[in-house]
């Protein structure tokens, strides 16, 4: 399969639809959070949709994903059903994790989605291991590992990058560089702010791509995945993006200016891609309205499903603390 992206309408529309689905899904989550139906932390992907949507296009069903706690977009783009996802956020037994994981811990066996992980950097060693296991079992699968710019500060980043490169494991490291780790600006956290360059320290091919451009992300991801599948070892993909909202629902945002946020909003992945499609006559307003309506309908159904969901019986609390068998 070639790194050339089918630039046919269908595919382009699909990309836009995916980003809209994520954006609208999270807008609904905000409402539900304000209504205190979603509790705890809620890390929104608003502004970063192009990263997951672009990367997931390069993966097949045999591939695996290791996500972060900012993973609604990663999950939806990977194909996790909105209904089970929304039920999870509402803590319902119909959720993909029975409501035990919540927003930060979405796991989905069907799509080999190995979880949102709430320990920054904690997913990287896991991804290395999934890739190792796949390789040892002769699967030609790729593990896409998502993490933020802040995770790059952690020792686990260093150890995992080296191990993957040393053993030439099929890992696609996807750094979602949104320039901040909570309130910590990249430049205040890293002596070397060119993250992609760090890959060289492990002899791993690394590129930086405009993470607000879904086409650029997809083609870079496809290229990287091809390299990996052909046995070239791991690849590093830095996606330069931006988080439009607070780190988790609310924060004073004392660490950045409103002007900075507004400037980035103008470069938003959806507004920009939509505009480009329009200018090139690849889409019309009806299409867009239809996509939004379809997304809203899907979300509405998901909310209904979640709201109608049940609570896991308290008697089940200790179930799965230890497993009786290895699920297959």
């Amino acid at each position, binding site marked *: 399969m070639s790194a050339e992206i089918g630039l046919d309408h269908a595919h382009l529309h699909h990309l836009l639809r995916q980003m809209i689905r994520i954006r609208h899904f999270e807008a609904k989550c905000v409402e539900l959070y304000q209504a205190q139906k979603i*509790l*705890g*932390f809620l890390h929104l992907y608003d502004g970063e949709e192009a990263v997951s949507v672009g990367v997931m296009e390069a993966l097949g069903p045999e591939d695996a994903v290791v996500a972060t706690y900012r993973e609604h977009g990663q999950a939806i783009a990977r194909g996790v059903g909105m209904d089970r996802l929304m039920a999870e956020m509402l*803590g*319902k037994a119909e959720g993909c994790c*029975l*409501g*035990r*994981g*919540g*927003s*930060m*811990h979405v796991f989905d066996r069907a799509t080999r989605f190995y979880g949102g*992980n*709430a*320990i*920054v*950097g*904690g997913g990287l060693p896991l991804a290395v291991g999934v890739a190792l296991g796949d390789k040892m079992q002769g699967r030609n699968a790729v593990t896409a590992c998502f993490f933020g710019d*802040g*995770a790059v*500060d*952690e*020792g686990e980043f260093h150890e995992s990058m080296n191990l993957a490169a040393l053993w030439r494991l099929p890992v696609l490291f996807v750094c979602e560089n949104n320039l901040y*780790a*909570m*309130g*910590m*600006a990249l430049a*205040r*956290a*890293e002596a070397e702010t060119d993250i992609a360059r760090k890959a060289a320290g492990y002899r791993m091919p690394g590129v930086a791509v405009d993470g607000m451009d879904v086409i650029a992300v997809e083609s870079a991801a496809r290229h990287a995945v091809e390299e990996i599948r052909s046995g070239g070892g791991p690849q590093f993909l830095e996606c330069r993006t931006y988080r439009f909202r607070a780190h988790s629902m609310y*924060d*004073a945002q*004392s*660490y950045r200016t409103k002007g900075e946020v507004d400037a980035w909003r103008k470069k938003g992945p959806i507004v920009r891609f939509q505009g480009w499609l329009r200018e090139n006559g690849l889409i019309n307003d009806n299409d867009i309205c239809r996509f939004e309506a379809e997304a809203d309908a899907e979300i509405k159904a998901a909310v209904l499903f979640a709201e109608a969901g049940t*609570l*896991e019986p*308290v008697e089940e*609390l*200790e179930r799965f*603390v230890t497993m009786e068998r290895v699920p297959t």
Partner: protein
Amino acid sequence: MMPTAGANSTTISYREACRQAIRDALLSDPRSFVMGEDIGRYGGCYAVTKGLIDEFGEERIRDTPLSESAFVGAGIGAALSGMRPIVEIMTVNFSLLALDQIVNNAATIPHMSGGQFAVPLVIRMATGGGRRVAAQHSHSLEGWYAHIPGLRVLAPAVVEDARYMLAAALADPNPVLIFEHVMLYNIEAALDPNVTSVDIERAKLRREGIDVTLVAYGNGLQKAFAAADLLAADGIAAEIIDLRVLRPLDTATILASVAKTRRVVIVDEAWRSGSLAAEIGMRIAEEGFFDLDAPPRRVCGREVPIPYAPHLEDAALPQPADIAAAARALVQPAKGRA
């Protein structure tokens, strides 16, 4: 902003008490500084250090990268070279990444070096469950730290301790860990103007009673109070001991109370097996065995990763009703003994 907003007001929050304590330390000792993730520009993940960067600047309110092992180790090194660092680890959940530095360097160097070096370091961290943030963000691991020789471990459960324990900790030539329970930051209390310091040696009798002793710490103290109210309604007078200091344990205060009430329930939000409650219970069994009219009891967290779903998290953590039930069972064996 007003750095000491609330200082003169009659009541202040636990959060504000922590903040004032840090500010006092920075004002009183030029060797002190604060280091941790998002404590500066962001103002602290629980807003404890809000505004301090404006008052003291980036040198003394030092935002760190996400490198728990390195900045905790750096705090140890800075202490070795004469500073008095106050390191904040956002939450105990992330402290596992720095545990090697704490166990193998901070706690070990003074003894291992034959007393050539001390490590006058304070590490603050938030701890505990109840915030609906699921398994990886709801640990109660302070009991682990209480296992380590060389450390002093504090658990301020009331605003007064949040306000004054830090100064005592900084005066201690040894590494001191302060665990602030996430559910306490918003509690409020009036500070007694006559109290300007607290000890970090002794447990404290918080409520007198004759029928049963409830031993608790951190957020468990709130639950013990609620349980005592429930018990009072049944005519059972519970005595409440706030541990305050998790290492070294003040066994004497606990034994004195148990000798009086002859019954004890230990409250601990941590997983039951290997909990600090086990240590306390065993000490009572070892040293107060013949004072007991009934077996020591504990009400601990269920042995499960803390789930996100509120009803499951509530079921996983000890609740006042559970504590009251355990106490009742001791006082009224006929009715209660399970």
